[in-house]
């Protein structure tokens, strides 16, 4: 533009010169335009590439956990062992041992037999027990029953223990491999869908461990968080954005909110420990406490998102409403809020997603715990999905590695659904003023 003015002084016809200058600079400007655009695309490709890489590595590790090796055994429900009056305490292990003996009658020797019995999960007795308790008619019959294989056997079948290694360096012996081969040849060995993983609580036996307990815990915790943080967050945002005059008081609140959004989550854990547990004496490990801590943690996020949603509603809407005689409360509730709501919901869902993946503050309020029973309410001891992942990641059993990855996959699936909801909302209501 400056050059245009200079040319005016030089006395030549102005339009031609300007156009020439613009034309001359066009290739450079287009190049820079293309470059800029390319960088933009590159940035997106990079971020999506990271995402793909991460998903690929987790899926590659975790997908095997959805199937579990099971072994079909002929079980004779021996009336000698199962006394009708003491079904719960009968020796179900004997039934399994008996079944294995039938298949492999020539296995003798203490060590050998121990290896043989290790094929079947140590928790299979409880499965059998529940089976018989449900249907006592079975007693006296012989049935082919699919039982879970032990975790090490499962790992071996899935190829995590390489057979080429010397025998003493893997947890499955040559003999066990030979038996597995035989079972497979007879069609008694199968990888079946791992239902336990989705229906059970935590367990120390990988083949019995499930995520349902953690899912329920997460649900209760998030329910508390959502019920509290959404209304409070929206109310606070409305006040700060629409009603508050700028004063020391609102400045203080604003600084506080912005600061809290930046406070590391573990500090909220410290707060929860001091206030909810030590002062109010609320129960440890309870979803209600976890939910309260997460509420305090997500509130700033939600308030900030809600405020920016309110901010993006143009003043003309407010002026129009005020102009036809609406009060300020009416203006906000009837006109501004509905327009800002999709943005607020998006922010809330993102806040909820963050809360769902959070583990550090829950560490301080006792939610890092071994909990087998499925929580049924807001005060039952519970753990949440990311904490379950953290716990499993710390377990020595090899089979927990794939289960950890699988639990991550489930958690990611939940997050995908939540993010999907946020996106759908935004797409449906997004508008530019």
């Amino acid at each position: 533009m400056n050059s245009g003015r200079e040319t005016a002084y030089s006395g030549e016809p102005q339009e031609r010169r300007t156009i020439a200058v613009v034309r001359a600079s066009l290739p450079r400007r287009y190049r820079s335009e293309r470059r800029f655009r390319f960088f933009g695309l590159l940035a997106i490709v990079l971020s999506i590439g990271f995402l793909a890489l991460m998903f690929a590595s987790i899926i590659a590790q975790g997908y095997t956990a959805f199937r579990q090796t099971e072994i079909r055994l002929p079980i004779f429900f021996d009336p000698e062992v199962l006394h009708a009056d003491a079904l719960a305490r009968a020796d179900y292990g004997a039934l399994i041992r008996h079944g294995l003996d039938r298949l492999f009658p020539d296995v003798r020797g203490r060590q050998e037999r121990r290896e043989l019995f290790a094929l079947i999960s140590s928790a299979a007795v409880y499965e059998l027990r529940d089976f018989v308790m449900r249907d006592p008619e079975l007693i006296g019959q012989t049935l082919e029953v699919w039982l879970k294989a032990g975790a090490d056997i499962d790992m071996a079948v899935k190829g995590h223990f390489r057979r080429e290694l010397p025998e003493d360096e893997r947890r499955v012996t040559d003999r066990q491999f030979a038996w597995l081969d035989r079972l497979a040849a007879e069609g008694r060995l199968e990888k079946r869908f791992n239902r336990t993983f989705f229906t059970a609580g935590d367990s120390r036996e990988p083949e019995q461990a499930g995520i349902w307990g953690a899912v329920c815990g997460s649900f209760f915790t998030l329910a508390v968080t959502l019920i509290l943080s959404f209304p409070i967050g929206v109310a606070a945002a409305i006040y700060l954005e629409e009603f508050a005059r700028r004063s020391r008081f609102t400045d203080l609140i604003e600084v506080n909110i912005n600061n809290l959004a930046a406070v590391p989550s573990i500090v909220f854990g410290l707060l929860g420990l001091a206030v909810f547990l030590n002062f109010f004496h609320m129960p440890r490990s309870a979803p209600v406490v976890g939910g309260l801590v997460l509420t305090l943690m997500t509130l700033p996020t939600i308030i900030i998102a809600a405020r920016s949603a309110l901010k993006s509603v143009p003043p003309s809407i407010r002026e129009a409403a005020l102009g036809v005689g609406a009060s300020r409360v009416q203006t906000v509730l009837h006109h501004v809020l509905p327009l800002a709501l999709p943005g607020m919901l998006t922010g809330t869902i993102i806040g909820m997603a963050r809360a769902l993946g959070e583990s550090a503050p829950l560490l301080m309020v006792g939610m890092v715990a071994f909990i087998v029973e499925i929580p049924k309410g807001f005060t039952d001891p519970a753990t949440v999905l990311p904490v379950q992942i953290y716990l499993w990641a710390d377990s020595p059993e090899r089979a927990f590695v794939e289960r950890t990855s699988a639990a991550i996959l489930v958690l990611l699936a939940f997050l995908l659904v939540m993010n999907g909801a946020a996106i759908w909302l935004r797409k449906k209501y997004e508008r530019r003023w």
Partner: protein
Amino acid sequence: MSPIVLLGVLLLLSAAAYHVGRRKAFAMAGAGGRAVRLHSRPTYHGALVALWCALPALLLFGLWLSFENAIVTRMVLERLPESLRSQPPDRLNLLVNDIRNIAAGHFDAAAAEPAIREAAAAYQRLRGLSRQALSAAVIALAALVAVFVRRRLRPSLRARNHVEGILTALLVACSTIAIFTTLGIVLSVVYEAVLFFRIIPFWEFLFGLNWSPQMAIRADQVGASGAFGAVPVFLGTALISAIAMTVAVPIGLMSAIYLSEYAGKTFRSIAKPLIEILAGIPTVVYGFFAALTVAPFVRDLGAVFGLGVASESALAAGVVMGIMIIPFVCSLSDDFINAVPQALRDGAYSLGATRSETIRRVILPAALPGIMGGILLAVSRAIGETMIVVMAAGLAANLTVNPLKAVTTVTVQIVTLLIGDQEFDSPKTLAAFALGLVLFVVTLVLNVIALYIVRRYREQYE
């Protein structure tokens, strides 16, 4: 009546009050003829009655429950025989605990002393009495106030203004929660931090160059040097955050620009959610990714170039943290870029600017305060991020800015100090609170500065 049921009853009462109030307002207005002009619409009359019905009763409810325990306990204690009552406060506390447990039926009453058993029974009786009284009082108060307010309804009553006033008060109350949260954090952290600074001088902690929190774990055992100079920890935090921001800001900002200005509708609707998924991935997962995939990769890469890279290099943790933060920068910048009025774009285009010129000269400056806010949020997330660094950054407090070396961060130290096997009230544990305090103060200062900048930019733009 249990408190929850009582609360439900109260809600029902207030719903009924709403209808009663509204009905009266309609009646006042005259059934069809609109004989009288109401100042406010009937719904506001209803809402006013409902609010008055619920709020005082709720207040009573809350106050009653918070004082009930103390009063009942005091009354029970007064009935105890002198011998039991004259114990030191600690013991007395335990006694009360016992009584309450027995009263609640958790502990076996048969095993307890008769005096205690009696006290437990008294406790239970008094509490039951108190609960009944509470129910009666709350319901009576709700009904009375509702009836009273209903009778005060007049066509000229400024019901709307009243309701709006109450509503505004509630909004203010909601927004003050932030202050209380901060207060809670400060109180719970400062208390322990002060204990720490009594043992370790404040200046030594803040400016000492050697961090090695190894105090004696047992009285008969001496740990290592036991130095509490936090500078290496702060420097490590800064280093990792800086690496993270170098990754996140360019990628996030460029992604946001491309998405909002260049991308077609379909591309945007696919790419934006994909990037946002990165934000939803829990930090535990990033931690594993960093420790098991990125860190070995960085080390191997370093080996190719003949560089000695630590297996827990700051680079690996920083890069993964950067990846985590990309969507934060991206989605916030995107929002602010979208918020820039279309008129500004049209103006620039009409002057013949190319898109990138419009973006760089017009849109970015306009959206800058918002973007700054987003970046600052991202910085504070980087400083406070825990799980990634716990898993990938290690614990060695090296005083270095070399991204290939292992460093430690404030949050890592807090976690390891708090979940160790040491005695709980040792300086080691307390150091965690001191670090937490510093973290808190630093983010506070950072944000105050940031807010100031944002506000100035905004004023300039307006």
